[in-house]
């Protein structure tokens, strides 16, 4: 991969980020609700409301507010939360860890299981295993996350007692070191699996279909004519070609994973960004909402950048462009 390619891709991120900033700023301000009223309460006097607006800079014209905000963001300052009175940076720093852990684990599980199931299914298309995986993934993809999450809690946490009901750690115990990690892992398992479920389903189907398509291609016939065994044909030739659409899909699913995490975090009381986003929206806390949306957007943009780079690594035709 050339340095020029990397530089060009990185440069492309800048206008994308600015676009996201501008659009979310406008959208957030289009949402009805006056932060001053929310802060001071319905009974506040007009003078008091005016004072709050002046303090927060809300009395100034929108373009001016935007310039101030953009300049702050450029310095890495996401502002002060209206409802909590704390810097948004601090709120995000505190909550982003659990969300990254949850989404990252779900991404890992779904990539691994999705590819594995797709690969095994494509080995014997329309065989028993393939039919089971296909049907299960259709159902898995169709089920809404909130329903699946509650059912999982009911079955695996309440009835079977295999997993804890909710939370990030066991708050009744003070644990350190390895014990702490295994406790987090124990709490993480069920929400991560539920979050991964629909992604596994999607990836398994895309991988299987892609593989079957690649197995019909001319270069696969060449590999067979060379005397390669069917496993070698599948693993050495078809799989890497079939991975191209999967890589693309993975990149675009990162955004969905984060939004899915909002629901899952609510069901499992997971102390991530999800609950902060929900609370900020309920309280019309524009500054917090903006900051959170920006962080998620940056995550998605960089996930896509990573996808592009990964794509170039898998496919030499992209690399040389």
């Amino acid at each position, binding site marked *: 991969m050339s340095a020029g390619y990397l530089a060009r891709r990185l440069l492309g991120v800048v206008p994308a980020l600015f676009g996201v900033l501008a659009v979310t700023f406008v959208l957030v301000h289009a949402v009805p609700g006056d932060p001053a009223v929310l802060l001071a309460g319905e009974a506040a006097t007009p003078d008091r409301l005016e004072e709050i607006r002046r303090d927060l800079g809300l009395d100034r014209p929108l373009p001016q507010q935007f310039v101030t905000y953009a300049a702050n963001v450029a310095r890495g300052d996401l502002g002060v939360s209206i409802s909590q009175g704390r810097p948004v940076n601090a709120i995000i720093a505190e909550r982003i860890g659990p969300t990254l852990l949850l989404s990252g684990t779900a991404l890992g599980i779904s990539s691994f299981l999705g590819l594995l199931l797709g690969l095994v299914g494509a080995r014997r298309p329309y065989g028993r295993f393939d039919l089971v995986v296909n049907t299960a993934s259709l159902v898995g993809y169709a089920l809404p996350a909130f329903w699946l999450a509650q059912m999982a809690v009911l079955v695996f946490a309440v009835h079977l007692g295999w997993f804890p009901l909710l939370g990030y750690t066991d708050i009744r115990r003070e644990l350190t070191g390895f014990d702490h990690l295994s406790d987090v892992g124990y709490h993480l398992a069920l929400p991560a699996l539920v979050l991964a479920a629909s992604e596994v389903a999607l990836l398994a189907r895309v991988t299987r279909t892609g593989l079957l398509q690649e197995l019909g291609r001319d270069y696969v016939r060449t590999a067979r004519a060379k005397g390669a065994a069917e496993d070698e044909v599948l693993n*050495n030739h078809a799989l890497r070609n079939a991975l191209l659409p999967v890589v693309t899909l993975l990149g675009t699913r990162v955004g969905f994973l984060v939004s899915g995490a909002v629901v899952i975090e609510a069901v499992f009381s997971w102390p991530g960004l999800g609950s902060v986003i929900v609370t900020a929206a309920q309280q019309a806390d524009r500054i917090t909402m903006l900051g959170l949306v920006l962080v998620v957007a940056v995550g998605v943009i960089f996930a896509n950048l990573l996808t592009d780079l990964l794509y170039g690594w898998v496919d030499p035709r992209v690399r040389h462009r």
Partner: protein
Amino acid sequence: MEAPGQALLSVRDLHASFHTDAGVVKAVDGVSFDLRRGEVLAVVGESGSGKSVTAMSLLGLLPSPPARVSGQVLWKGRDLVGLAEPEMRKVRGAEIAMVFQDPMSSLNPLHTVGRQIAEVVRLHTTSSKRQAWERAIEMMDLVGIPQARRRAKSYPHEFSGGMRQRVMIAIALACDPDLLIADEPTTALDVTIQAQVLELLQETKERTSSAILLITHDLGIVAGMADEVLVMYAGKVVERGPARDVFYRSRHPYTLGLLAALPRVDDEAADNRLRPIEGTPPSLIHVPSGCSFHPRCSFRRLETCSVDEPPLAAHGGEAHRAACHFAEDVVSVAPADLQRSVPSAAAAAPGP
């Protein structure tokens, strides 16, 4: 190694059919031929005549199901039909190698060409990675790819069509096969590149005393290369014999039609239009009764041709055979301009 004088490849009554929802497609219907070392056998016919399916069934490359193959493919005295897959794999690529039609899609776009040549070496020999790579470079050199050592690290998309076909040939020749099956090896190439690739095939055959099964619909190529010709129509052999006999003394109306359809640059006749064979190839699910060519034939006599299937009978010597009730009429009618000169490779247009 086959016994002295024995054919390298002996195909007997080969059938290949596909079971589809619409019915059974008989793509190859009772094909027999022999191929000896140093020989080039050309299989000609229109698209859908069963040429490629014949080649694929020799190597056991047809997907089964839906394909069903029966008959005998005697390779060095051993029947390849029904041979267990692990045994068949030892034959594929090592003893019988294949070059496919479209070099654009027949190479894996994600692997370097060196790796793709080395792969076949690694599959059939005990050589190390290093040795296989050296062999790949040697093969690229042999098939005339300049700067082989450097180019081995390139990907297929960095090569031209002709160079890619050379890579395909390098893959096919890397394990010194006894038989090279070339399925329309030049159809996707420019005319000048065609000639180079054919020359390369010819040289290889002479150097290694192997045999070539050349599948093509380009009669110009056949005239330039083949010793024996097999003309296929609707899955059956309708004429076969030494190339000169089939060209100069065609005994089957279909062969005659193929020859007449050749575009000619030396044609002094007023119109230079192509003369296609009337009609279209039949559906291989519902093959016409009697002689399957009779609906398109200008020599037919319905009371005979639509009822009796003509046998592949000898005409003017044991080697030249044709499946036509009126073979003698055909040979006498053969137009003079078809006998004057055999079309050269350069005169023949690339396939459709």
